[in-house]
């Protein structure tokens, strides 16, 4: 195909609205892939995905994407982090030691403003302490906007310590009694600390669905005693929100954006590589069998029959489970299992017609060898007619990757769209209403396959005009 014809075809293609739409979609997906590859190195993406909570501890769990606030009546909270090591977060810390003696006083204030319409999802306090022998001792207080002060905990601080406020059972019990006394009625259910600490203290707390958020300035005050001169304490309060970033997070607090971005290059390259290599290998096999005929042809027919009896997905699953393959090795297995697929028969029928054309005879007459005839004369003749089906089959392979992930057989390390769906599915996202978790990767999957489908159908009309008349 000359460059001019290619240009002509491209112009023809642009005449179809569906093709233009398809090209735009594919452009977007490819842009996304390039962006992912450039901004997040693969190792980092894999690390972020595998280590999960170890590195995304500051993210909320199962948080919806932030833009969801645009569609809601109420304003869901973002995550607030106040860190004594980061002055700009508003944290204040003072350490005072007397002229003599080793006992010093510590005071940390962690103020923040909370003006959202819903409660935080969790509250955690992360502490680090410097000491050589005696651990610092601290008391933690919670100051509400109405001035009420609540004692949260008294504790010694290890060198790396954490206090999970939301799951402190003792605190939960105390807060319930506290609220019951405030309101004058017994609170009839266990109110979790992240709600109790932010609740308006009136009768609305008596029912879980009516509890209201008290907006305003909150403060956590930590007062402590240090027993060594070099001793020090730093801390980070994380008020986990209910929304996060552009994509939200999953059950392991991972930013879904990483997998959504990296899913694009993986899905596209898996689909395109599979479809191109399978089409070409099938074509070569078909051309060889059509050209040589006789036993080569017979062998091929038997191979396709064998392939038909061997169930594709089960065999692929078995290999994937037993050998724990990475997605690229899996790709090779997919290709090997598909090269004797039904496409071979279609191509073979085409080649049998091409074989009889006069120009092949002419080539033989001037002494072209078998290999030359197959690769230089037969395959190029058929190539344009298979381009549409090649493009169309990409979607199938993109979904194959997702299907394998749904069966838990995706790549063990790489983040992919299918794996997000699988996680969402196994963690009951549909039951619990975390729709974004399923919808985001699904949307991208649909978009990708739609792009290839639209382009493929338009190409079909251009390259196989006879069929498209109907």
């Amino acid at each position, binding site marked *: 195909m000359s460059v001019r014809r290619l240009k002509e075809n491209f112009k023809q293609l642009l005449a179809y609205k569906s093709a233009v739409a398809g090209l735009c979609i594919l452009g977007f997906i490819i842009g996304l892939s390039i962006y992912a590859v450039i901004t997040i190195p693969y190792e980092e993406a894999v690390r972020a995905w595998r280590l999960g909570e170890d590195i995304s501890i500051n993210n909320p769990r199962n948080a919806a994407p932030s833009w969801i606030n645009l569609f809601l009546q109420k304003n869901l909270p973002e995550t607030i982090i106040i860190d004594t090591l980061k002055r700009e977060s508003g944290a204040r810390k003072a350490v005072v030691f007397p002229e003599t003696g080793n006992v010093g006083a510590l005071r940390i204030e962690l103020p923040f403003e909370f003006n959202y319409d819903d409660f935080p999802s969790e509250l955690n306090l992360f502490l680090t302490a410097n000491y050589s022998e005696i651990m610092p001792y601290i008391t933690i207080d919670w100051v509400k906007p109405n001035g009420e002060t609540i004692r949260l905990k008294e504790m010694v601080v290890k060198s790396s310590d954490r206090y999970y406020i939301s799951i402190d059972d003792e605190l939960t019990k105390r807060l319930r009694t506290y609220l019951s006394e405030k309101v004058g009625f017994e609170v009839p259910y266990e109110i979790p600390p992240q709600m109790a600490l932010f609740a308006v203290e009136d009768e609305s707390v008596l029912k879980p669905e009516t509890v209201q958020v008290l907006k305003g300035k909150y403060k956590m005050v930590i007062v402590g005693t240090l027993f060594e001169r070099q001793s020090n304490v730093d801390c980070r309060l994380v008020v986990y929100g209910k929304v996060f970033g552009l994509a939200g997070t999953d059950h392991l607090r991972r930013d879904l954006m990483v997998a959504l971005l990296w899913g694009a290059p993986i899905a596209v390259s898996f689909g395109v590589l599979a479809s191109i290599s399978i089409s070409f290998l099938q074509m070569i096999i078909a051309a060889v069998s059509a050209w040589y005929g006789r036993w080569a042809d017979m062998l091929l027919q038997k191979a396709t029959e064998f392939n038909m009896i061997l169930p594709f997905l089960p*065999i692929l*699953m*078995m290999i994937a*489970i037993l050998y724990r393959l990475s997605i690229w090795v899996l790709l090779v297995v997919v290709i090997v299992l598909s090269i004797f697929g039904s496409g071979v028969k279609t191509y073979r029928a085409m080649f*049998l017609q091409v074989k009889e054309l006069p120009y092949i005879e002419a080539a033989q007459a001037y002494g072209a060898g078998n290999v030359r005839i197959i690769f230089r004369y037969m395959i190029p003749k058929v190539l344009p007619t298979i381009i549409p089906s090649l493009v169309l089959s990409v979607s199938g392979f993109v979904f194959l990757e997702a299907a394998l992930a749904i069966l838990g057989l995706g790549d063990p390390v790489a983040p992919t769209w299918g794996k997000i769906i699988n996680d969402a599915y196994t963690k009951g996202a549909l039951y619990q209403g975390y729709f974004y978790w399923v919808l985001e990767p699904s949307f991208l999957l649909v978009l990708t396959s739609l792009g290839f489908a639209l382009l493929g159908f338009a190409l079909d009309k251009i390259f196989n005009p006879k069929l498209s008349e109907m």
Partner: protein
Amino acid sequence: MKRELFAFLRYSAKRAITLIIVVILAVYATVIIANMGGYVDEIIKIQTRDSINQSVFQNPAYQHLSTEDKKKLADELYEKEIEALGLNKPFIYRSVGYLFSALSLELGKAMYLTSDSGSKAVRAIIVERLPTTILLFTTINLMLFFLSLVGGLFLSRKYGSKLDKAVVSLSPLSAIPGWFYGIFLILIFASWLRLLPYGGLVDVPPPQNPFDYALSVLKHMVLPVSSWLLAYSFIQTYTKRTFFLMFSSEDYVEMAKAKGVPPRLIERRYILKPTLPPIITEFALTLIGSWMGAIVTERVFNWPGIGTLFYQAASFMDSPVIIGEVTIYAYLLAITVFILDIVYAIVDPRIRIGATGT
């Protein structure tokens, strides 16, 4: 006549032999893969070794023995157990044994899975799961088949109409597989509207009354069936319509039209007659293929069929169940192919006399 019969028999025998060879090869390939080329045996050996060691060293009856003697005893027991399991022979040798027992449908016992009735026999497990898969996917395929046949015929008659164009433009919907639509349907009809169940076969606990039971199963079938119809009905209608259109522009159809043959008769005699055999072949193969269960669809809808069974078997590396399923599938498919070949040979004289068309 006699010569023709002879040619027909020779053709049938040839097909039968090829198919038998293909089945043997396919099952053997499965045996090799399902045993990981012998690796599964190593796992069993280690497990046996562990359990024997444990039973010998912790058995109070052997307390008087020295460690040396205990080891000796354990080794002896292990050898005996391995021999009883037949694991003392090399894998290649045993794989042939597996092949023959699979081919004679002596599927043996599952390693880990059990049937709901508690049986460990592979056959019992498969027979228990098969009906649910057949129920669901035969329903789906029959619906798809008749819908696309009638729809395709109708559209080929109304070629160029708005409806025709709509179906053509909706056919790219099939780029998305059925299970994927399933997720969306669950999201809409189960999570959001709460009209239909998330998945499974029947309500829990299952209704006692057979009528209610059937109704409950029906209710659970709505979403899987519609997800497949959504995914595949447009493309199938579209391809059938194109197929009919191709045949309706043949010369003999034009001729019949010119002669004034009524359109219904043309449709039946000149269009459906030559197009139905390949359509039915395709349908038969799809139907048999569907009995292997659509593994992903069954997983999405939690449908307790043969596909889910395969998924479980593969996750537990339960080789006997895997081999059993593939063997039954290979047999079913080979028999179907054979019957179709024979039917074709009877119908089409070109095949019967062994002429090869291009």
